[in-house]
């Protein structure tokens, strides 16, 4: 089983609200003192891939398209025992649109070679577009399944050789799928990313890591730097938050609770 896991490095989603700042010009978050981390759903995807490899054998290549710092995410993946790592260096626009990303990933995947499975996180913790998986499947011309949390290799000779478990709004579904396939992965108690052994962390810094430029992939770097032609962020703002607690008003307890109930229903109705 040849597995390619796409990883995205993002701004730490757990950054305290008060530390979160945006650059209105760039229409993107400012890193400031916050750290960069691997998107959690991408790590869930890697963990699911590692578990699949334990049962079915094969090879895992981790692939990232991002700033040079995304090497850290790939090194960590190597420490978790991915086999190979490829970084496509994004030296331009901080946040190309999902179609631009999908095209870059597709080109890189074609360069990596034949694959059975491409795995991605269901969405990223920064922009959360949730589109890269679907668009990548279309770019590669293969089918895709979303919200997967476990993958088994089916017995028998059927061409539907993968059995995927995926989450739905009301429960779960089991999907029989052929390869090659693109899946997006969501979190589950069974795919919590493993903690790498320190020994493997140390080794990961000595492992080779391929770095490709957009030019090498035959992609119009200028278009990617411009952000792509799929969509454009025209505004980014931090919503003004009600940081102070409003105590419900009313002369009597009855009035106060009535106000409380009204506010509660106002919130639940807006969902």
């Amino acid at each position: 089983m040849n597995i390619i896991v796409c990883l995205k490095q993002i701004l730490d989603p757990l950054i305290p609200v008060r530390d979160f700042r945006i650059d209105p010009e760039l229409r993107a978050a400012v890193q400031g003192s916050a750290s960069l981390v691997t998107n959690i759903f991408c790590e869930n995807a890697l963990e699911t891939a590692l578990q699949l490899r334990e049962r079915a054998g094969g090879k895992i290549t981790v692939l990232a398209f991002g700033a040079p710092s995304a090497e850290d995410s790939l090194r960590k993946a190597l420490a978790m025992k991915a086999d190979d790592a490829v970084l496509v260096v994004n030296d331009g626009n901080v946040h190309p649109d999902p179609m631009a990303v999908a095209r870059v990933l597709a080109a890189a995947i074609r360069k990596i070679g034949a694959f059975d499975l491409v795995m991605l996180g269901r969405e990223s913790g920064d922009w959360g577009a949730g589109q890269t998986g679907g668009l990548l499947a279309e770019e590669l011309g293969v089918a895709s399944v979303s919200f997967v949390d476990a993958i088994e290799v089916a017995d028998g000779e059927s061409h539907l050789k993968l059995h995927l478990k995926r989450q739905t709004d009301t429960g779960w579904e089991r999907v029989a799928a052929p390869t090659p396939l693109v899946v997006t992965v969501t979190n589950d108690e069974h795919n919590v990313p493993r903690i790498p052994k320190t020994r493997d962390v140390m080794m990961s810094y000595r492992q080779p890591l391929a770095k490709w430029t957009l030019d090498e992939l035959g992609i119009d770097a200028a278009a990617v730097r411009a952000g792509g032609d799929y969509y454009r962020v025209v505004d980014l703002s931090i919503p003004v938050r009600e940081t102070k607690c409003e105590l419900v008003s009313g002369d009597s307890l009855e009035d106060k609770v009535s106000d409380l109930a009204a506010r509660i229903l106002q919130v639940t109705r807006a969902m």
Partner: protein
Amino acid sequence: MSDVVVFLFSSSGPDRATEGALGAARNLADSLGGRVHAVLVGASNEALMRASAAVADAVLIADDPALAEYQPEACLAALVQISRMISPRAILLGNDAYSQELAPRLAHRLGGSATGDAVELAVDDGRIRARRPVYGGKAVAVIELLQSPAVVWLRARAFAPAEARDPSGATVTRLAVDVASAGGPRIIERAVEDAGESRLEDARVIVSGGRGLGGPEPFRDLGEVASLIGGQLAASRAACDAGWAPPSWQVGQTGKKVAPGLYLAVAIHGASQHLAGISDAKVIAAINIDPDAPIFKHCSFGIVEDYRKVIPLLRTQLAAQKK
């Protein structure tokens, strides 16, 4: 080319989500000066059809047996065929898992642009813009879709329902689609989990009790409040430690991290370890007798009162105001 298609999966609804999606379609079509085509995909659903007809200009029913149960590739092929038939300016979907799965692929096949989790739609100089939360809710972005059609899945409950019209004004048509050749992955088993057992992490509304409850019995009353607002019960570590609530209810640094739309904290002091578990909650409300409790520094609204007095009144009020 200025029409709006809204795809509704007929397995569910009509409910608040389908109403919101229809309302959004209506508004958008009015801004574009186009028509609303409501496309019902899957087994026939009379009620949904009537609700759609009250809002849309055209109701299209795609109840081909191959679409009766959702299969990703067949459904995608059907949506592509229908979209090409109508060639709309915008295509709207709900925020169910299937819509989220289909939206980007549909956009790709139609040469359009997609975005999702939209809470507001606007037309600016002919271009469709969607407002959506990003960075885990810390910021809001406005996305302008550069290619046509615009494919948007909506946080449907965020949109107001449209004013209902006389349903007889809408045309109702059955659509034939050809999805026989669609291969690929097949769903071979479906399981619906007991709603009561659904994950606290996914709950939209949570009513949580703390040490101040003083015992296990009050959780029954909290349960009644929760069921009135479609919520699930949770508890602080102190309450779980005391054995008043099962460990699976525990929210906090060493318990579950939840992200509901509303978190109602009852008699919870608000230790930072507890707050760490609810930092992703959209709205936090508190009922606590202690005005200095840290929870009041983190909630949007609250009441400083003994919960024993508040809860029975709240139950009556919620029941009354819901009507």
